């Protein structure tokens, strides 16, 4: 950074003490963690810590690896090598229960004249003004759809209602396989 090559920096899926230590050492611009209606783990401590420290938050998999667009259902099976095949939240045993979230999204999509994916992204944007989702795609139509979510806004009452409805749905299964999850929420060793 002192050479001007990196203008800002951040951390992904770090431990809380690590984030505070890092920020004290060199101001952290952003944290990037998984965050969506399907995985709300950052609500535990990450978002409040970011707020305390003035750090921005970037959401990876803001569409739940496609699940929140309605692209997966109980019949979906994954190719070997598709990370979703080893995420138990998408196993045949979990998907039927988790589809309650997609049902909720479809009803809000109708209400707001949007798509389920757009409701998912707009919900993230509505949580904090310093949250930025980075939906990925390899399809032009999906990029157009995703960027269109910036046009969807909720009233205070609407977001309270939607937050409550999302909170009422219990998600079954793990977001990542254990061997990958082992790298998340880990503290960096001390320098000494």
């Amino acid at each position: 950074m002192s050479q001007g090559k990196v203008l800002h920096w951040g951390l992904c899926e770090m431990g809380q003490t690590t984030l505070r230590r890092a920020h004290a050492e060199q101001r952290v611009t952003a944290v990037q963690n998984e965050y969506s209606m399907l995985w709300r783990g950052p609500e535990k401590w990450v978002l409040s810590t970011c707020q305390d420290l003035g750090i921005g938050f970037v959401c990876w998999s803001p569409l739940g690896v496609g699940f929140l667009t309605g692209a997966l259902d109980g019949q979906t099976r994954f190719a070997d090598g598709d990370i979703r095949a080893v995420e138990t939240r998408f196993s045949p045993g979990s998907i039927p229960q988790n589809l309650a979230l997609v049902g909720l999204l479809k009803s809000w999509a109708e209400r707001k004249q949007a798509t389920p994916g757009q409701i998912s992204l707009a919900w993230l944007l509505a949580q904090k003004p310093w949250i930025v989702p980075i939906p990925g795609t390899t399809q032009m139509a999906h990029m157009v759809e995703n960027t269109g979510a910036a046009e969807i806004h909720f009233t205070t009452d609407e977001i309270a209602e939607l937050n409550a409805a999302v909170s009422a749905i219990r998600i079954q299964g793990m977001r990542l396989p254990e061997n990958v999850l082992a790298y998340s929420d880990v503290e960096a060793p001390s320098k000494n």
Partner: protein
Amino acid sequence: MPGNRARGGIGRRDLMALSLAAAGLAAAGLAAAPLSAGAQVGMSMKGVAGERRRLGDLEVSSIGLGVQNMSRTYQTTIPTRPEMLNIIRAAYDRGVIFFDAAEAYGPHEVERILGEGVAPFRDKMVIASKFGWNIDLETGRRLQGLNSRPEHIKAAVDGMLKRCAPIALICSTSTVSIHRSRSKTSRVPSRT
């Protein structure tokens, strides 16, 4: 043509003037590549994602574009490269100035695609990339474990700059031991 199921065409607004100046880094040798047909189509819908947000003191579009799958999708297929460039450029035309990549995606190949995609306007971009996995700096081959040793990080960042400069934000993990904490690098647009 992009599909029209999205709500993207509504409420277009002009891009906010970017206060991001080009950094000295970006200055040299930005040969402008011809815009793709896709990008030109996108121009008619300019600014849908033109709203800006702040990550710390870094200004980005309220919605970014993740490009992880542009070298290989979750389904393990390989997308058509010219279309990926079209999507990147059309996203920019819709107001997206924040792109998220990582050294590990590809590895290296996604950064190359992104660098080519943003070439016509890269002085206005915020590009985030990440390090942390132990990846051979020359071949891109994945080695065992993690590597956030200072000398490795410096060389990794130089590689990122070559592939997709200019960079604005690099998120990294200072955590030598964490991955997912692979850092992200992003770079902000150049600033004058």
